[in-house]
């Protein structure tokens, strides 16, 4: 309930009066007779009208004024003798919330809406208009959300093929610390759109980031290939060297060959590969000194797997 309420309040602040107000305003002149008012209200099935003289708002008159006039004898006179001249107006650029507060404060049935610069009457707002405007916006956002969720979660389900996979490839530049991490942050967003479970995205993000940083820090550059199928996400990280001499040693937490300036940036603590191992369901690294390294990471999407439980 609370989130729903917050959303409504948010919408009331987001929407401007100009977004929802009625623009087809029915007006009446100050010199018109009260009998004209009766016919106008009846004809348009409304309960009040702004009084306008030569395009300028001069007053407002409602069905309550009409009833009071009738009970006082109903002697025909001009609108201007009966209308209220003490006007409470709103401006078209104000948020809908201002109107809600004003209805609470004054208890009127309607407020004229003016354009701020010219002071010209441009619309009218009633409680009904506020409710309709808010509901329309809620319905619109709900629909957008439904479509978005549908697309994401049915992405694989809706497409028919014997085998389905999505492949995305990123180039990683070596020593480019300004753009480092971009592939991983972009992939995190992509996986979200595909409707992948958050805990899986988190593990892919960590493994991917560490692998990406390894390419940036230690190599002249390489690439990352993400492959998403219905049951797993695979990442293949390839670089063109220098290659790792002793993979077993490299896998030990705290072991590092990085230079001191890299360490000062907070990288190269010898934790990258152990971090990847912790997040991955499968990890395989092949390396040849002078040629390059290929790291394969697999994270299963299944409901219940060991790494997910241990993570």
């Amino acid at each position, binding site marked *: 309930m609370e989130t729903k309420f917050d959303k409504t309040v948010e919408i009331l602040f987001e929407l401007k009066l100009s977004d929802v107000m009625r623009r087809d305003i029915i007006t009446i002149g100050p010199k018109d007779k009260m009998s004209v008012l009766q016919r106008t209200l009846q004809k348009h099935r409304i309960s009040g009208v702004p009084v306008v003289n030569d395009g300028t708002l001069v007053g407002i008159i409602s069905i309550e004024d009409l009833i009071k006039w009738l009970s006082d004898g109903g002697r025909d006179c001009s609108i201007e003798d009966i209308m209220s001249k003490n006007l409470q107006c709103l401006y078209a650029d104000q948020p809908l919330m201002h109107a809600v507060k004003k209805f609470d404060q004054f208890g009127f049935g309607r407020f004229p809406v003016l354009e701020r610069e010219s002071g010209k009457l441009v619309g009218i707002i009633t409680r009904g208009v506020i409710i309709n405007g808010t509901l329309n916006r809620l319905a619109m956002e709900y629909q957008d959300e439904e479509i978005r969720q549908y697309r994401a979660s049915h992405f694989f389900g809706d497409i028919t093929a014997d085998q389905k996979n999505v492949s995305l490839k990123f180039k990683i530049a070596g020593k480019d*610390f300004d753009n480092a991490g971009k592939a991983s942050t972009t992939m995190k967003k992509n996986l979200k759109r595909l409707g992948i479970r958050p805990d899986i995205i*988190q593990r892919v993000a960590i493994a991917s980031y560490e692998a990406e940083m390894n390419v940036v820090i230690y190599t002249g550059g390489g690439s990352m290939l993400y492959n998403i199928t219905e049951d797993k996400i695979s990442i293949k990280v390839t670089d063109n060297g220098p290659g790792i001499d002793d993979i077993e040693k490299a896998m030990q937490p705290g072991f590092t060959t990085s230079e001191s300036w890299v360490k000062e940036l*907070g990288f190269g603590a010898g*934790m990258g590969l152990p971090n990847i191992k912790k997040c991955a369901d499968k990890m395989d690294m092949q390396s040849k000194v002078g040629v390059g390294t290929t790291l394969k990471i697999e994270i299963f999407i299944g409901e219940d797997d060991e790494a997910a439980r241990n993570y």
Partner: protein
Amino acid sequence: MKLQEIIKQCGFELKTQNENLNRDVTGGYSSDLLSDVMANAKDGNIWTTLQTHSNIVAVAVLKNLAGIILVNNRVPEEGTLAKANEENIPIMTTKLSTFEIVGKLYELGIKGN
């Protein structure tokens, strides 16, 4: 506790133009090693560090952190701020050291995870 409230109570200087200061901070983590943060910080944590380069934003995005506090009067690099604004990650600064600011946060009820 909301991030907004923490900023007020601790007198942080907010360096980014953020809209998401209403987030609940789930706890805190302190480290200058990015891999350590990647491994151990938790969703919604606030992070104190003396690193100022743009990769702290990537780490915060990937770990879905509530915000980054730069300690010891350190200022974020220009590229860091641009990226943080783009990703909507709040970056704050303080003249206090890590030790002092963590103590203050702990007193406010922001615990480690």
